[in-house]
């Protein structure tokens, strides 16, 4: 006891003595660029460094330190600020953001970590990088920014969503046919502020999707995004479970951080212009061309036919004496705007944010557009370090006008834009119902989305904390469409669709952190997760309202009612998961993460609903080794590797247990029996993705050069595929897991800062590239190959084990027969090479490779042609800042990918029928065969008499398969920050103005208009919605 008192006394004395020499310093810490006060900056002093204070809510601090002692101001994400205290007692410190990838904070498995101790592959994109471009879907701005994230903005439809893939193909399921063949999307999982969101919602049915078709991603205003984090490998995504197999994108919205409430206004005013349209031949020139073509045939019957084809013969009739520019009827330049107000404030104990957004875009195709209204709020309350509450509430409404299209394509427009110029322009009294339908169809399509979440955590003991997160999302989609009588064969039509969807999500976490001597750091956590999802949709479709003014409410008999009712896509799904993770690091030099997750889903059957998903990752920060510790040239460097498995619940209870249907009666007793269309597969497994990843990260010369390199090998097993069964089973089909594929590839990101930190001009250039190859490894029944026949355009898909997964299966076009003598002759019969119906090939016809050497062009002559999936994707970004000016450039590229130019083929096919009133395109720049020009690339398009047999511009040939590589300048932004002193005078904190050009230009060898504006299977269809170019003027004002 005595000793204790003595000790206490000594300590007090020491403290007392030291305190005597200390001085009190006060001051404020601000952000070096935005001038915002920084809250929670730690102030450290002495040697070794000890924390002596922390900044309060207004960035103010006060600390007592020894005079002349070195002071360090440390804040996460910012460079340390070192100062040696002299006489000054009042300090204003401006911290600058560290531009060093290592210090980024990443969130992996709902845990915040510094990048240094992350074993997975993750990339962060700051919200600022994507905020100066007004687009309906923020996803498209990520294009080219992240190595391995392949985004193709393949539709320009307002509010629609392009294609997104992380690390290549994960699915080969194709639905639909022809141009509408739709590759099932494998979007990554989005986690918005800790709440997982299904971004593929409303796209289950490909082009045939009902409803407004607004993706949840289109409802997020870009202005509200703080940062996006893309998790690519299996370790990083391990704890996200079910949808994590396709990668995870974490989206963090803004938080309040200023004690003085900040009001930030962002306004954009932009013009969307339609891309260049195709050249057509109009009026008299069109008629002449057609007549010349018919006279050229030398057939008297055909020439006689002219007199019965009115639009050719009756040139004096005003109805046929026009030169209508049909494309102009549909396409327009539009003026659009967005407004966003973000109010935020608070301190670490309590802060809040409210973001209100409005987005308005009219489509470049008339009668289409997208409006978004959103209010997103969040609030954080943390009265003491132990207890924390975070809530969010987001409400969003998207209003989308699809015209008479389906949201992704506008086939009505395409059809009419392809009409002959000789016909008169659209008017109510002409029979141009297609035009009326495109322009006069009334749409009122809304998506309403409400999402609320609550996240509570409490520290039970030192290091041991308990957390719980609950979220509920409710979405309602409605589509109301009225087609006036004039546009629909004299009967008006009413279509009403509505659906509702909910997701309830809960996660409970228990975690423990321990550190032994600051050397051995342990982190253990366990959580369980529960999802409950439901969806239901219904439709009413009726015809023949009394008139075009009377659009409802309606009541009908069974005759005029075109059906509807509850749609068959009702779904309800429950998921329960348990996960545990263990992390260990030694002095943050050697890091190891192990995680294990069990996922049970209601769609994988209750016999053994849980799939087990382990993951492991290791990292070695070799710059911390003594040998490299002091090296100036190496800022940081590390090697990491990971392995893990993830699942995607696929299939449904019907595929596992079968469906039982009523089938009338037997002996006056009810019959209930199994449905024989699908044999239950009691051993159905979820699709599993296993991934190996090796990564290297290093920064050189004070982070002026940074390198991130990743190599991965991803195996996608148990892909669901429905196969036909032998008829001795009595069933038609079964869904099995027998299809697998692998992806492997390399990703490289280089960041340069060519100018020194002290330079007035700051310039950052970042280049990334990803090479991904996919190989099909297994098919049902152990088949070596499988051909998915698609007779709409005869563009079949070949699945062959050992090759790329999706191969076009086409006729090989090897040129054009210059003369008749070039056509090969069958030595056995003396007959020339001919088609199956006996038409002989002749000069001007395409040379189709006769694969089976039977001198007949038939179905055996198809060959495996190109790969519709890109091999290399990437981008280049540059950011230059000089004083108040900044110039931001974002480009992206896709290399080595085959596109089927169906739009071109279709236009050339119109030339093969001079009697049909279709548009005649300008073929002057097409290198086609004529008797004078025999060495041509393209066959003779005018030989219409043999056209239907030879079909020289058929879709199923390699002639129209082109390289779809492109390099695109996505955006250029020039911004100017008004002088603060000037703006402060008017009570405005800052004003920033910028000019942005989006989708500026695409460089490509592709002959079509836009190599990106094609379907995921690389088919360029004329009904696709063109991607507009937009010019934007915008400003940020901060009060």
């Amino acid at each position, binding site marked *: 006891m005595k000793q204790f008192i003595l000790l206490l006394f000594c300590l007090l004395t020491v403290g007392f003595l030291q305190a005597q020499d200390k001085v009190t310093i006060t001051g404020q810490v601000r952000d070096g660029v935005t001038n915002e006060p920084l809250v929670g900056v730690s102030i450290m002093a002495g040697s070794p460094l000890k924390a002596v204070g922390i900044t309060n809510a207004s960035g103010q601090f006060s600390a007592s330190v020894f005079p002349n002692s070195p002071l360090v101001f440390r804040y996460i994400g910012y460079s340390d600020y070192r100062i040696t205290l002299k006489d000054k007692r009042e300090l204003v410190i401006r911290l600058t953001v560290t531009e060093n990838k290592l210090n980024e904070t990443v969130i992996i498995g709902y845990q915040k970590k510094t990048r240094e101790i992350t074993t997975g592959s993750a990339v962060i994109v700051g919200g600022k990088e994507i905020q100066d471009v007004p687009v309906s879907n923020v996803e498209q701005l990520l294009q080219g920014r992240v190595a391995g994230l392949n985004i193709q903005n393949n539709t320009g439809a307002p509010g629609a969503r392009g294609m997104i893939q992380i690390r290549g193909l994960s699915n080969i399921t194709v639905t639909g046919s022809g141009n509408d063949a739709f590759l099932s999307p494998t979007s990554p999982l989005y986690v918005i502020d800790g709440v997982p969101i299904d971004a593929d919602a409303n796209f289950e049915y490909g082009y045939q999707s009902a409803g407004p078709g607004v993706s949840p991603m289109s409802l997020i205003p870009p202005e509200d995004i703080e940062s996006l984090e893309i998790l690519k490998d299996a370790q990083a995504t391990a704890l996200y479970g079910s949808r994590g197999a396709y990668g995870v994108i974490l989206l963090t919205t803004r938080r309040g951080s200023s004690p003085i409430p900040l009001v930030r206004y962002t306004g954009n005013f932009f013009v969307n212009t339609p891309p260049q349209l195709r050249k057509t031949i109009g009026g008299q020139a069109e008629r002449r061309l057609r007549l010349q073509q018919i006279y050229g045939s030398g057939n008297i019957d055909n020439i006689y036919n002219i007199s019965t084809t009115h639009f050719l013969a009756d040139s004096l009739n005003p109805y046929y004496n026009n030169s209508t520019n049909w494309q102009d009827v549909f396409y327009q330049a539009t003026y659009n705007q967005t407004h966003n107000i973000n109010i935020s404030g608070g301190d670490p104990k309590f802060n809040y944010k409210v973001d209100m957004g409005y987005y308005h875009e009219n489509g470049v195709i008339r009668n289409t557009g997208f409006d978004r209204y959103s209010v997103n709020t969040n609030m954080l309350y943390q009265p003491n370090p132990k207890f924390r509450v975070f809530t969010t509430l987001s409400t969003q409404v998207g209003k989308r006008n699809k015209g008479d299209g389906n949201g992704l394509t506008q086939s009505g427009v395409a059809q009419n834009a392809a009409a002959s110029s000789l016909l008169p322009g659209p008017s109510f009294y002409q029979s141009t119902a297609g035009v009326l339908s495109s322009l006069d169809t009334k749409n009122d399509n809304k998506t309403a989305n409400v999402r609320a979440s609550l996240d509570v955590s409490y520290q*039970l*003991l030192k290091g041991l904390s*308990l957390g719980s997160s609950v979220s509920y999302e409710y979405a309602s989609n409605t589509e109301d469409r009225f087609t006036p009588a004039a546009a629909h064969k004299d009967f008006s039509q009413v279509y009403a669709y509505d659906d509702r969807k909910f997701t309830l999500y809960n996660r409970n976490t*228990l975690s423990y952190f321990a550190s032994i001597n600051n050397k051995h750091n342990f982190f253990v956590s366990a959580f*369980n997760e*529960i999802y409950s999802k439901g969806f239901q949709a219904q439709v009413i479709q009726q015809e023949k309202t009394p008139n075009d003014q009377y659009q409802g409410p309606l009541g009908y008999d069974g005759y005029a009612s075109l059906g509807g009712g*509850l749609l*068959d896509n*009702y*779904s*309800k*799904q*429950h*998921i*329960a998961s*348990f996960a545990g993770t263990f992390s260990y690091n030694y002095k943050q030099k050697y890091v190891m993460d192990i995680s294990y997750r069990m996922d*049970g*889903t*209601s*769609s994988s*059957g*209750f016999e053994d*609903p849980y799939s087990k998903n382990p993951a492991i990752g290791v990292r070695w920060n070799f710059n911390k080794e003594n040998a490299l510790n002091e090296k100036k040239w190496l800022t940081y460097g590390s090697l990491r590797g990971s392995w893990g498995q993830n699942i995607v619940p696929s299939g449904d*209870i*019907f595929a*596992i*247990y*079968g*469906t*039982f*249907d009523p*089938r*009338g*009666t*037997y*002996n*006056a*007793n*009810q*019959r*209930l*029996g*199994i449905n*024989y269309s699908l*044999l*239950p*597969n*009691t051993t159905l497994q979820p699709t599993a993705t296993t991934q190996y990843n090796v990564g290297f990260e290093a920064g050189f010369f004070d982070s002026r050069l940074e390198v991130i390199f990743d190599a991965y090998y991803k195996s996608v097993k148990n892909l669901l595929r429905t*196969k*036909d*069964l*032998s*008829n*001795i*089973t*009595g*069933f038609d089909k*079964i869904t099995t897991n027998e299809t697998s594929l692998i992806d492997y590839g390399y990703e490289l990101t280089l960041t340069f800062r060519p100018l020194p930190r002290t330079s007035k001009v700051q310039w950052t250039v970042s280049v990334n590239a990803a090479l991904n190859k996919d190989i099909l490894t297994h098919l049902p*029944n152990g088949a070596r190959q499988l051909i998915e026949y698609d007779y709409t355009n005869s563009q079949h898909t070949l699945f062959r084990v050992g090759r790329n997964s999706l191969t076009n299966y086409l006729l090989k076009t090897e040129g054009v027969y210059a003369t008749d003598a070039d056509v090969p002759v069958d030595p056995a019969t003396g007959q020339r090479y001919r088609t199956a119906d006996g038409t002989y090939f002749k000069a001007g016809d395409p040379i189709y490779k006769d694969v089976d050497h039977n001198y007949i062009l038939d179905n055996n002559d198809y060959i495996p042609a190109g790969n519709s999936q890109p091999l290399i994707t990437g981008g280049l970004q540059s950011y230059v800042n000089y004083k108040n000016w900044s110039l931001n450039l974002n480009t992206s590229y896709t290399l080595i990918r085959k596109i089927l130019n169906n739009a071109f083929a279709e236009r050339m096919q119109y030339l093969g029928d001079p009697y049909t009133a279709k548009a005649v395109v300008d073929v002057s720049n097409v290198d086609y065969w004529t008797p004078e020009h025999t060495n041509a690339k393209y066959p003779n398009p005018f030989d219409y008499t043999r056209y239907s047999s030879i079909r020289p511009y058929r879709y199923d040939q390699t002639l129209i398969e082109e390289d779809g590589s492109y390099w695109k300048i996505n955006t250029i932004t020039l911004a100017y920050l008004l002088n603060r002193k000037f703006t402060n005078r008017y009570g405005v904190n800052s004003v920033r103005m910028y000019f942005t050009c989006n989708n500026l230009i695409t460089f490509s060898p592709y002959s079509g208009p836009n190599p990106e504006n094609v379907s995921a299977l690389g088919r360029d269809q004329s009904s696709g919605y063109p991607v507009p170019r937009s010019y934007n003027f915008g400003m940020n004002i901060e009060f």
Partner: protein
Amino acid sequence: MYRRIYLIACLLLITQGGCKKFLDVKALDRLSGNAFFQSASDVEDNMWDIYGLFRDVVGSCPMYAVAGEVRGGMLGYSPQKNDGNDRSFVEYAAKNDLIPLIYTPSGKDFWNIFDLANLSDWKPFYRVIQACNILQYEVGRRAIPDLSNEQKLEYQAEATFMRCLAYWTMVRLWGDVAYYTDAYHEAPLPREKMVTVMKNCIEDLKGVMDNLPWTFTDPANRGARASKGAAIGLIMEMNMWNAGFDKGNAQQYYRSTADLGNELMQSNAYELLPIDQSFTIFKGRSKESLFDIVISSNYGETLSEKWNDLSELVVHYPYKRPAANHQYSFCYFRAEYLRRLYPTGVPDARIEMWFDSQMFANDGTFLFLKYNSVFEQGNDDVNVDNNLIVLRYAGAILLRAEALAELGEDAEAIRMMNLIRDRAKTTLYQGAGGSALKDAIFTERAKELMMEGHYYFDLVRTGRVTNTNWCYYALTPSQFDNGGWTWPISTASLDNNPYMQLNNYWLR
């Protein structure tokens, strides 16, 4: 502090327990398998569906009429085609020229309404088999609260019966067939020797037949549901089939048939109804029925087309309406054949009950009245409302007679046959034993079961199909050995089944 940790651990455990229930989601719009087989009524409904599936397949075309009767050749094609449409497929079938029945020749488009191609498609039979296997499997592994163990065994035995019935019908049509008894069978299989298939079925059914009741308390189920009598009747038929093809073991099969027949008769559960009530027999669900396929116009339970009924080819107005285009039958029994079955001067109540004065008219005025219990009084074109009788007591007795004759127990065989002859009010058999007796029994069977879909199959199993006395266009022995008695198998059977082989006879 530890208390808190315990509390957390407990909470975690509680959530674990509720999970299995949480993950069992039942769809609202459709009935998924995991929500089925939950109660006795589910099993009952599913059992009735199996019977219904069997009716669906045998009713999908005139299967019993064409494969069982027409193919024997004793039905002539009537020269008067009163509705003007072409049913000449009966001539093709009689001449064993079956390919045109499967692939309708040009100009014979009217045949398509008969869907005769279904006679080459065994897939619907495998539907019955899968349904039986699934019911057996699911009932066996699930705890169904309101179903006792006895009831479970009974349902499983019923399913076994229906499976064996399907295999028996298939074997008679196509010979060798793929055989399996596992639920949710997916794998392709080669065809199994039909003798083995029948052997397996016999073993299978013998094992469970005691779980079936002799009779039902609800008379509506009599004949409509598998009883022990139905099972015995089917085993007897299968035995007799195998006896014809597995000659080495024929005696065992005959013995088994005779013994089972005895057991059936000892049970006194079934009886031969008086001949003047023969319409009740064919109306169905009678005390003579072993197993029927229920048809009821009242409840809308019919074959898929009304002309798939056995009566279609041999009745006309007033048993078919409207009068205008039903003045003649489409077929007639050849007079020479009928004269052989019913020698002149021998009384037989069946002549009065089943034929009219035009019995020996070799044309469309012929009328066969076995199926005349109900006919529409209005002017609707509806066939008579009989059940399809698959197995009946009289047939079983004749099978027993046949087996006994083969075993050399002539006296008992004659006694059996005379039960039937007595009921038909004809003279009792006085003749010799041996082959004369066998022929007499066969004649009796041909008379008694005429137009019930047994005739051709009886010809096949007894080898009489090569005998022009019994088969109008008889097969040669080599045609018979090469499988000329089978039906062609659809080439669709080759799809996704590398082990499959079709019937070679039809591939020439």
